[in-house]
């Protein structure tokens, strides 16, 4: 089970955080700080895994953005790496050639997509097509509902 997932930039700026287990605010901030310093200090051509306390950190850099998640000991690191990759693929499909700015400006959308992919720290849906479809559908439905509601009632 994934414990948390963080997205941060090369400068260590947090872009997205998802916590699958309840943690006090102070603890979260400390973890974010630890993760950014640890992951950013990694040299190129090292492996994508780290040990941290009793968890395993799996991270991957996509352009200027680091995707970083924490796993339990019995979890499969390589699978987590592919889960991250699937998330990136989804973002890419949704935004079309996604870049860090897309995620900064539309971070709530990035959260919505993540909520379709993972739930309770486990993979929920792996089909790229159906996730994007359901996100787009709810986007559109919401927009049209809004239109509908805001129309003056005669």
């Amino acid at each position: 089970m994934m414990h948390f997932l963080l997205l941060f930039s090369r400068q260590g700026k947090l872009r997205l955080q998802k916590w699958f287990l309840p943690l006090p605010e102070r603890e979260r901030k400390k973890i974010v700080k630890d993760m950014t310093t640890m992951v950013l200090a990694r040299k190129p051509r090292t492996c994508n895994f780290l040990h941290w306390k009793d968890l395993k950190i799996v991270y991957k850099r996509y352009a200027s953005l680091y995707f970083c998640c924490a796993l339990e000991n019995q979890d499969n690191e390589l699978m987590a790496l592919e889960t991250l990759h699937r998330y990136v693929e989804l973002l890419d499909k949704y935004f079309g050639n996604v870049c860090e700015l897309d995620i900064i400006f539309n971070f709530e959308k990035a959260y919505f997509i993540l909520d379709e992919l993972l739930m309770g720290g486990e993979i929920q849906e792996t089909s790229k097509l159906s996730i994007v479809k359901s996100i787009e559908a709810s986007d559109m439905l919401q927009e049209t509902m809004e239109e509908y509601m805001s129309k003056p009632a005669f």
Partner: protein
Amino acid sequence: MSDVVEKTLTALPGLFESQTGAAKITNRLRQLIKSITELTSKHEEENLIKRELSAIKEQVSSPNTTMKQMREIMVRAMYCEMLGYDASFTYIHAIKLAQQGGVLEKRVGYLAVSLFLNEGHELLLLLVNTVLKDLQSTNLIEVCMALTVVAQVFPKDMIPAVLPLVEDKLSHPKEIIRRKAVLALYKFYLIAPNQVQHIHAKFCKALSDKDPGVMASSLHIYLQLIRESPDSYKDLTGSFVTILKQVLGGKLPVDFNYHSVPAPWLQIQLLRILSLLGKEDQSTSELMYEVLDESLRRAEMNHNITYAILYECVKAVYTIHPKAELLEKAARCIGNFVLSPKINLKYLGLKALTYVVQHDAKLALQHQMTIIECLDHSDFTIKRETLELLFRITNAQNVTVIVEKMLDFLCYVPIKTLTFAPDNSWFIQTMNDVFSIGGDLLQQDVPNNFLRLLAEGKPEEDDQLRLYAVESYLTVLKGHTSHLPQCFLQVMSWVLGEYAHLQESVDRREVIRLLTQLLDQRSVSSETRVWILSALTKIPEGQTDLILDLAESLSSSQDTVLRQQAQELRHLSQDSQLREWVLVENSCAVDSSLSFLDGFVSEALAAGAAPYKPPHQRQEELSLNLEPYSFSLPVSLSSCSITDRQSPTLLSVSSGLSGNSAELSTLILEGVKRVWGKDGYLPQKEATAPPVDEPSAAVQPASQQEAAERIEPRPEPSTQNQDKQQLASSLFVGLGVGSSVSLLGKSEAPPPRFRKKPRPHESSSSSGTSKRSSDSSSHSSRNTTDSFLYGSFPEEEPATSISTFDHTPKSTTANGLSQNKDTKEDRHANTSQILGGDMVIVRPSTIQDKHPPSVSSDLTALLPADLKDLPHSDVISLTSDPSLSLSSCRLFRDEALLLVIFISNCTETVIKDVAVQLTCEELKVCTGNVMDCLEARSTSVCHYALLMDDPHTNVSLTGTVSYQTQPGHTNTLPFSGTLSTADFIRPLVVTTEEYGKLWLSLSHDVKQNLKLLTDAGDPLRTTLNALKDALQLHVVDIIGSEGIVACRLLSGAPCLLHCRVNGAALAMWLRSPHPALPDFILYHCQRALAHH
């Protein structure tokens, strides 16, 4: 979902308008983000956010704010929170938004809630009604959102409120709802397993759901359930096997494929479940052999996700009841992982090995060279994983080497390992190292366990160990102590307090003096002071004066605990009777009759309590039927003793301590019958292996040599390889098969303490394949790094005498670096004042050429005869002024790049004191030379041999020439130039076979598609030839649409290129032992092809 899409499509025209509206809404956020990026300091950001938050505060409390505006405000608030600022005043509004907003607002509201509110936040209670309402909504999306938020934030005590509704959703017609409901229930199960116990039957329904997504989600719950009690779910094994078979057979919709692998996440989940079910259960395991075999077979594609599946599969094979055929296949898979150049796979391979060596230590033997390499890996994670692996294969024979390795790393040294210690002095010495190096970073149980080990030993047996400890600590304390870590000081003071009396020869006053000395040190923490004082208390009386002094000085201490201890110490030292009473010599004396309880017992009896009866009496009285139990008792006892005898760990502990390992190995092999043991691997074939201390070198050299070559593909083992092999032999000694124990043909037991020799100066991993001559010359050129060599050539002796060079003995040999080495010594004295460059050869040859030698093409004619034939670049003009002109030319020699600088005198007068200074930071060259005079219209040639250690794309050279046209008037002329990596690359002549071997041994690789030159008939050959011309590569072979090419950097690092025609592109795959080299070569290949 399709009806939803239809509905929305009809509303498309309106949709576009609304999206522009949405764009307007997010404008404020955009502004905020933009202004934040423009800020320069943290302070400015704080101010900006403070302003933003107060604006938000104003807006949220205004009654005129619409829900739509509120949504936008909430997004901004989320952003501020993400930056780490407190926006808690918006929390209640987030709940309101989820409650009252339309669907769009609701979504943002729920997101804000899940980000802001932790489980247990009191405001969450306000959300329950909203969630209940949404769970019952007819709008699918609202139901989805409610389920998501429930799984994200609902705490234990709020689950009952929503549980019935979530449960109902398990039979919802829409699969997306069913799926989310299953996962929400999984989350509930994790937080409060008792509350969902009654729905286990429904989980079973979810498992057989017609939608594979719902079924896959239910596996999360099942994995958890099975982990807790595998026995209750054995009957499901068949179903799981069938599902996995279907997945492997491609029965799932293509939608579930990930990079054309069918449902990998599902596969992995199933494999995990199967391994739990088959663990220690032969009949269940038999059900899954077939599907595991197929799984191993199917996962062939070269993609991370297939490796993830393979890894899980291998783990499953080794967890369930073993089947030889599967084990063999799995072992091969592990081999692929470990040998992979991809570092992630290597890591996973090490992990798999660590898991597997508990069952089969031979596997570690197969990969010993890789393990050794990983031990020195620059990646911390890999190193740590390797040590974990080594820890698992620790035995009495390799313990010294492994512990040494662990000390290097010092994350932790599990004391368990040290129970194998060969002798007392080694043990204590090692622990000293551990404590002084690891210090306070050690986990607390390391010193604790160590002290327990000392304390629990039998007095007669372990007194020697204690004595040794006391002795060694006294020596340590007599030295410099201020740098010692606190925990070491604590350990030492405890041991001295407890066992100093064992050592007759030690003066107690000396012990007290050493300990009190510690108290005076500033660096000693107050906790350690307490330890020291307790130790002083334990040292027997007789030195009252010293103790009293000490107590006196401490009685004014600021620390109350210390003051109290000092008081106690004073009282105890003054009152010997009290002391005897408090500190009993043998503290283990126990009053077994419990006489001190007599008063209490008689009181209780008087109050009517039943008198105590010993257990046997009670049992008789109970008169319950004990027959079955008593009858089985002797049986279990005897079986117990048998297993005890078989346990290798127990035996190795005892004999390990006695230090007689030959005895140990015979002892082990008697007991061993099984391959699988709970205590780890049980070595199998020791019976056939020769005893370790036999001179085995003569017996089995051939087979060992063979083994060495099989594992180590390089044809000529270099010294470094030998180092590694020696390390391997000492690490893997005592593991399994005797013949492969030692790769070097000498196996000794116990192994000698192995110290790694310092690495040779350069990476000799290439030496095996690079030509011998180049190797030796690069060695010799290294030796001369600091010397300044120049040679002059008899056949072209310049007519003008240049006095500076006159005193150098003329080398009679032709120019050659290695030959010049012989005369290096006598020159050294003259040249030591000149800053040493990497390799410098200056050849001052002024040519009596009366024609102005300004045309550059003529200049190459001035090259010394032996250099003329070398391939060279065009002569380029570096710089010039009215009196001097400088040109340069690059000559490609086999072992170095020769940079030739021509200095031409363009005037009709003699130029004096010409000094050339050349600097190149990247190549670490900084050198200069001087000649007294340069005749009119003549040219002098200097050449410098350059080597490149670390590749750079381009290196720049700068330099100056200073000269005097008139005495006392110095002119300076700066010049600069660049050299590219391409200049330092030479062809590497290898055969296809050697290439293949080398390819496998290299770890750093880069892949890239390059342009293919398609203008000729054979595009691959044309392209490779173009590369060969530009870069001096050696085309090893061209087979069909693939070509292999090899080259090396001058310093020795080889680089192998594998080219394949891939449509209109050339897929280039480069490998090298040097991490950066492939990148640079690739860069130059790209350039060469672009320029072509």
